[in-house]
């Protein structure tokens, strides 16, 4: 059956990584789930650019972090954090669309 990342991940968060980037962490409860999601290829550079509607050049890092059972990626902001008009100075609420990503075969 299909489950969402909201069901499968312990932590899904976003936060500033310095003043020019926002980093996203998706941390799983256990290694088996982490490996399954990795294999399912639902969380990749391509799926992220499609979901957020951004070009690949906006992604500075994409890492599968085995010691933390986590998938992590980082994007460049279009303007530094806290510039007038920036609605999320800490970058703390940009993760929400990830929660609905569907993972088949769970």
């Amino acid at each position, binding site marked *: 059956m299909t489950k969402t990342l909201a069901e499968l991940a*312990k*932590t899904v968060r976003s*936060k*500033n*990584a*310095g*003043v*020019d*980037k926002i*980093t996203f*962490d998706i*941390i799983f409860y256990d290694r088996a789930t982490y490996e399954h999601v990795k294999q399912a290829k639902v969380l990749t550079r391509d799926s992220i650019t499609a*979901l*957020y*509607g*951004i070009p690949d050049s906006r992604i*500075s*890092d994409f*890492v599968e*972090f085995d*010691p*933390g*059972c*986590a998938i*992590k990626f*980082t994007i*460049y902001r*279009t*303007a*530094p*954090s*806290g*510039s*007038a*008009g*920036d*609605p*999320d*100075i*800490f970058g703390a*609420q*940009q993760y*929400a*669309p990830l929660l609905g990503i569907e993972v088949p075969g769970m």
Partner: protein
Amino acid sequence: MKSMKIISPNGHLGFAPLKPESFAIGVDARPDYIGADSGSDDVGPVPLGSDTSTSPVGWQTHDLEQMLLASRRIGVPMIIGSAGDTGTNSRVDLYLSIIRDLARKHKLSPFKLGWYYSDVPKDRLRAAIESGEDVAGLDGRPSLTLEELEATDHIVAMAGVHPYIKLLRQGADVIIGGRSSDCAVFAAPAIHHGFPEALSYYLGKVLECASFCAEPYGAKETVLGEISNEDVRVTAMHPDQRCTIASVAGHAMYERSNPFFEYVAGGRLDMTHCNYEQVDPRTTRITGPTFEPAPQFRVKLEGSGKVGERYVGLVGIRDPYSIANVDRMIDWAKQQVRERFGNAQYELHYTVYGRDGVMGAMEPKHDHAPHEIAVLVQGVAPTKEMAEEVALIGTRQMFYARLPEVKGTAGSVAFPLDEVMRASPAYRWTLNHTYAVPDGLTLHQTHLETVGA
């Protein structure tokens, strides 16, 4: 010293108060040092640019008092980094005066108070640029230009372990640091006592945010790190928190682009081959980090410059037709501001809550029509008067927006306030760069005095 223990009670001292219960447990564990970082660039460019703190002085004093009294009672040094959110000279001076006042208030026995400054004068960087030195951009930024430098109000250089180690060698009992890498607060005493650099920087990395490396989630609780020549052990002090393999490894990711590397002045901590081991329910042991010295010693510079004064307005919209056409209403209001001010220098920003207020262009959800929305209007201009007028026209003209088929012709928006409000001036991060220096003390001058003599 076979091993060294250090406690960290707060990951951003002043931003919210430390929790005294777990701090007391940590102090009873007889640490060799008590340390806390007090800075962050997360708070946006306003505090650095305007040289103010975002943290209330009452909360800063609360934590400094708890830490100072514990440090003097058990006779171990206390180290604070990035004083007052930004680590500017004025914030260091503020913390020094708080420490001196606390020493008097509690009639503390004499102790050595050390500090260092981190402000970088613009003249120094202007001279560097003019002589052809590269002030290199980080995170995709171009090299610093004279124009961008002139747009900057305040610059700090991020120290590594070096000024802390110098002050520890001189016998400082309390250190108030200017801007520094968070991890330097904890790595410095470990390196000072001869522990391996790699493990020392790892110790700093894991302790810098206090209980963020523990689970379940709960900030501002004390954690204890212990370093030996072979490993680092980190233990949660709150009775209901644990440092687990998952929480400690997970913390390596926090707030950084890449979980394997941490860049500090003078080198890079590599956590790729870290091994994590649960040694008791609340303690995780870490081995295997490495440290690579940088080929050239470069320090990171942070700079912020004022864009203008700022006023904000807020309107609500309930008419479904208006909600569907809110962009046309915004265009109308923008046009009215343009007609008033022409090509004069100003900024006008609209944030549409209920549609894409939080995520802007990155919002993927466009398939539902909200039943009500709020629009935040920000006007930024060189003077207070002009900023107020930009924001006022930009807000009030939403009321008069001309939509062809609107039924409600008595006003297109709901005002919760019939005014615009003064906000902090708008600043922006002008510097996120690095600059080559001969050594880690060049930009960070140290000072030492005896307090209470």
